[in-house]
């Protein structure tokens, strides 16, 4: 691992990775972090991993997290926080595996919740689906209504203009260019069809 002299320590850079990925660092600090990343394969790997985790989280399907689950997570976080306060000094990079494990657990939890909510939607979701069904039905009815009106208009126009007999009209036009006697015969024939 090489390091640029003014780009900060690995610990400092890795602490700022989240803010860096969120674009929340100052321009100067962003430059420092980038300089460090350019020369530190270890931190660069950490940055890629963090970005991958962020992307995975963003790509997850939309899930309504049940209140009980949120409560359980908050409780667990509070417990861990309390344990953390009691613990002695931790090694320099203790959080790396812990962070990855936590993120993985988070992913698993969200994916699990997603699958659970799809297989057994709770009662509140049933209402939402019913409401959405009514909306979909309404929208499709409107499309159907528009199509129907348009069809009616086209039909009325066709009847008015006589364009529902295009074959006869086409033949008549052709016939006018035929010799006089056959034209008359054919025109009568066509008009009486």
């Amino acid at each position, binding site marked *: 691992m090489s390091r640029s002299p003014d780009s900060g320590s690995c610990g400092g850079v890795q602490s700022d990775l989240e803010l860096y990925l969120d674009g929340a660092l100052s321009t100067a600090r962003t430059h420092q972090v980038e300089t460090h990343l350019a020369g530190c394969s270890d931190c660069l790997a950490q940055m890629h991993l963090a970005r991958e985790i962020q992307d995975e989280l963003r790509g997850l399907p939309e899930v309504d997290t049940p209140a009980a689950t949120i409560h359980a997570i908050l409780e667990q*976080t509070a417990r861990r926080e309390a344990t953390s306060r009691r613990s002695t000094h931790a090694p320099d990079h203790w959080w790396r595996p812990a962070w990855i494990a936590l*993120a993985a657990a988070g992913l698993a939890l969200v994916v699990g919740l997603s699958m659970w909510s799809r297989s057994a939607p709770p009662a509140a979701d049933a209402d939402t689906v019913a409401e959405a069904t009514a909306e979909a039905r309404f929208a*499709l009815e409107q499309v159907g*209504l*528009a199509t129907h009106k348009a069809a009616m*208009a086209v039909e009325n126009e066709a009847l008015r203009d006589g364009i529902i007999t295009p074959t006869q009209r086409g033949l008549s036009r052709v016939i006018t260019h035929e010799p006089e006697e056959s034209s008359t015969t054919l025109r009568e024939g066509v008009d009486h069809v």
Partner: protein
Amino acid sequence: MSRTRAGFALTLAVLLAPSLSLAQFDTDHPGYFPIEELAILPEESINLEINLPAAMLRFIAVATDEEEPELSRITRNLESIRVRGADLTGASLDSIRSGFEGAARQLQEKGWTSMVRMREDNEEVNIFFKEEAGEMVGLTVLTIDGQEAMLINLVGKIDPADLAGLAEGLDLDLPRIETPDNDAEPNS
């Protein structure tokens, strides 16, 4: 980074996961048309907004599978349904119609095909479809009906045969269209 911060990040990630997937609508889908950006309907007159993304349409398809198989079949193939409706009382019909003209130009510039454009006294129907690889992948409908205007964009595979069925299969009280077939059997 402290342990607290890692825990907080995880909690946030889990809590925010639903809102992170805000891209509910595939705006790059060829059948997508941004009816929200048309600025045809006066903002204060908009009284209806329907936004149904693919995930919800899948739920609807499953929920209506037995009782409304036609609705189920149509929604199963759709990626989104979006509707904007407005009460035109007091609004300028000419302005709305002019907006429709502009939208029609935009649609045609983007490769949409005009299926029907019908205009009567206080009614107007414009139906455009988008075709890709021989399939209809989007439908945009712009209508004025008396004092109501509506913009609709259906995204996804649409069977043209369904269009006729939409009105007839969904219990709408509509005047009957005379065709050679039903002329022969007027009571059918």
